[in-house]
């Protein structure tokens, strides 16, 4: 065979894709479909998560040397739209899906992902059922509501030990939605069995997440005359509650959330100013002392010079990690074939991570176990990790200064 003929034959073979792995490994990008609620009632959280996604490509290129391309979709806080967006992203060539923050949307997207055999890495969603359906393509690097409660309660015990305070009573207020209900069930089951938490819940008050007026709820809570407030909330109602507490001159030992959004978000600080001080949220968080955190923080500040990573700790942190998981699997699999990727994700073992807890490893159900929560207290107008001690950048303050037993 003459050289020219050989070259032509080679070219023809290459064109038909007979040398797939060689061609792909060199010029392949991982297309990551990022589905988040950037409009609708979850809008501000979705945008927060998006910041974590936007900084990912550069950081991951540095870290792992792989190229990823983000395909962003907004599911408008609507479950129907979530399903369609997922289908659309897959159709447009997304190799893996990441998102969506909301449990309802996660369930819908999970079905699409499973059906189409495209891996789906959940950044944030707490409903336990999502990883109980026997899916093979759905992975979650976040705590379930049960984990959140367990970690949250344990941290409360640690808090009391660290500050040498033993409150005897608490009043439990919770928002009556998906999240609040899951937390309430968890608390009801776990609290009685935790002997290092000797406080009793003297009253339970549930309220409507859409309520614009929480006067009655706070009045009831105040009348319970408990030592501290145990609160499961969302952002807007947390702000309303705090204000109402001031108006009604109710100053308990502290406000502790065993695990809910709201009090660590930027809006809480901006709106309440000094009043936001000392509120405590026990939530999955990033480790401020981890190496990866410093890297991500630098990248975050480059893209958002007027913002602070700490206000998006949970949202951006877990979104970034979800994309990291996808990229890491891609690096190991050396292919964008969905099934190969899914298998690779199942073998994930990332020790160099930014969130608290053990290495990122998925169990049979696609769930990461061992994600730890941090006790995050609002100090000097910033959400600050005060527990566990290894990750803490300040000491916890409890009870709040100026607390007097009524």
């Amino acid at each position: 065979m003459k050289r020219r003929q050989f070259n032509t034959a080679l070219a023809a073979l290459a064109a038909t894709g007979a040398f797939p792995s060689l061609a792909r490994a060199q010029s392949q990008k991982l297309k990551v479909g990022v589905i988040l609620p950037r409009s609708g009632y979850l809008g501000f959280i979705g945008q927060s998560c998006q910041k974590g996604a936007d900084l990912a490509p550069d950081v991951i290129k540095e870290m792992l040397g792989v190229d990823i391309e983000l395909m962003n979709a907004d599911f408008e806080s609507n479950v129907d739209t979530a399903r369609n967006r997922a289908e659309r992203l897959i159709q447009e060539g997304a190799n893996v899906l990441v998102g969506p923050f909301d449990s309802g949307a996660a369930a819908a997207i999970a079905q699409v992902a499973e059906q189409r055999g495209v891996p789906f890495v959940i950044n944030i969603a707490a409903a336990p059922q999502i990883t109980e359906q026997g899916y093979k393509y759905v992975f979650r690097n976040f705590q379930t509501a049960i984990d959140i409660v367990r970690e949250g309660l344990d941290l409360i015990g640690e808090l009391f030990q660290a500050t040498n305070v033993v409150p005897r009573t608490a009043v439990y207020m919770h928002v009556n939605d998906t999240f609040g209900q899951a937390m309430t069930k968890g608390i009801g089951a776990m609290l009685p069995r935790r002997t290092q938490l000797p406080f009793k819940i003297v009253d339970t008050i549930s309220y409507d997440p859409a309520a614009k007026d929480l006067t009655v709820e706070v009045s009831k809570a105040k009348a319970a005359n408990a030592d501290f407030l145990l609160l499961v909330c969302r952002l807007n109602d947390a702000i309303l509650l705090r204000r109402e507490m001031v108006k009604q001159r109710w100053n308990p030992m502290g406000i502790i959330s065993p695990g809910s959004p709201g009090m660590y978000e930027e809006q809480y600080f901006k709106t309440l100013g000094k009043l936001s001080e000392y509120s405590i949220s026990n939530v999955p968080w990033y480790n401020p002392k981890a190496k990866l955190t410093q890297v991500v923080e630098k990248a975050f500040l480059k893209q958002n010079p007027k913002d602070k990573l700490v206000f998006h700790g949970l949202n951006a942190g877990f979104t970034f990690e979800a994309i990291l998981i996808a990229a890491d699997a891609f690096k190991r699999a050396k292919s964008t074939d969905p099934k190969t990727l899914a298998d690779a994700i199942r073998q994930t073992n990332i020790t160099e991570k930014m969130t608290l807890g053990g290495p990122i490893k998925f169990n049979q159900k696609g769930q990461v176990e061992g994600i730890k929560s941090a006790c995050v207290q609002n100090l000097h107008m910033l959400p600050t990790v005060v527990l566990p001690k290894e990750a803490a950048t300040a000491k916890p303050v409890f009870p709040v200064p100026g607390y007097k037993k009524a």
Partner: protein
Amino acid sequence: MPAADLVANVVVSGILTGLVYGLMALGLSVIFGVVRVVNFAHGEMMITAMYAATVLFAALNLDPFLAMLPVAAAFFVFGYVLQAAVINRFITRPEHSQFMLLVAIAIILVNAMLMVFGPDARNVQVDYQLDSYQVGPLLVDKARLLAAGAALVAAAALFAFFRYSLTGKAIRACADNYLGAKVVGLNVKHLYALTFGLGAACVAIAGCAMVVLVDVTPPLGPAYTLLAFVIVIVGGLGSMAGALLGGVLIGVSEALAGLFIDPSAKSMFSFGLLILVLLLRPQGLLGRRA
């Protein structure tokens, strides 16, 4: 059994908040009572007014209570134009058409707010916002008291207008007897537009009062629309005192329901009340049978 002072506090707060809701509903009642159009964009107009108040506060440090004047004026014009230019031709159209029209306007308003202001809650931070007066066992929220006061003043002004001014009487004539009014030579189109403008101005004042108590976010719009309707139906269409009374009634009953039953179910109570009123006395407490 909750203590007496707890009940008292809750009732007082319910009355005060109810008055502000009543003012919002007043606008709706006036519009519906006269023009007979169901303003399903009412809550959305309210939040637009709230946003306007936050903008004025941020730009000029203008206290919302002072901002009431310019905002109400602006909304009056907006309402007038909206009615004259767009809604007027829908008066004779079937209800579902009217509904669709206003739903479309509501969607545009809410999402325009989202585009301009983003999804984060907006608010005003005035010094007296978290003050409260102690009157015996009662703790009265200062901001709420001022808001309720503004509501009463606005309602009284509107009432006086309709009762004593010539234009007010003309509007009432249109509401009572459309054909008769036309026969007598009243410019019904202009009067309708005027009424819508006044209703919008009411909403604007209510919004400025409300923004001191609540942060504004886009999804709040539809919630207020629903609330306004509940109050107006219960209080009585076309009756101004009825709107205020309805507001207070809903405010107090929700508060008490929250206290004695479950706070998260307190809205259920309002809707239950609405159903009962619709069935047993559809003209509302102070309305007149059509």
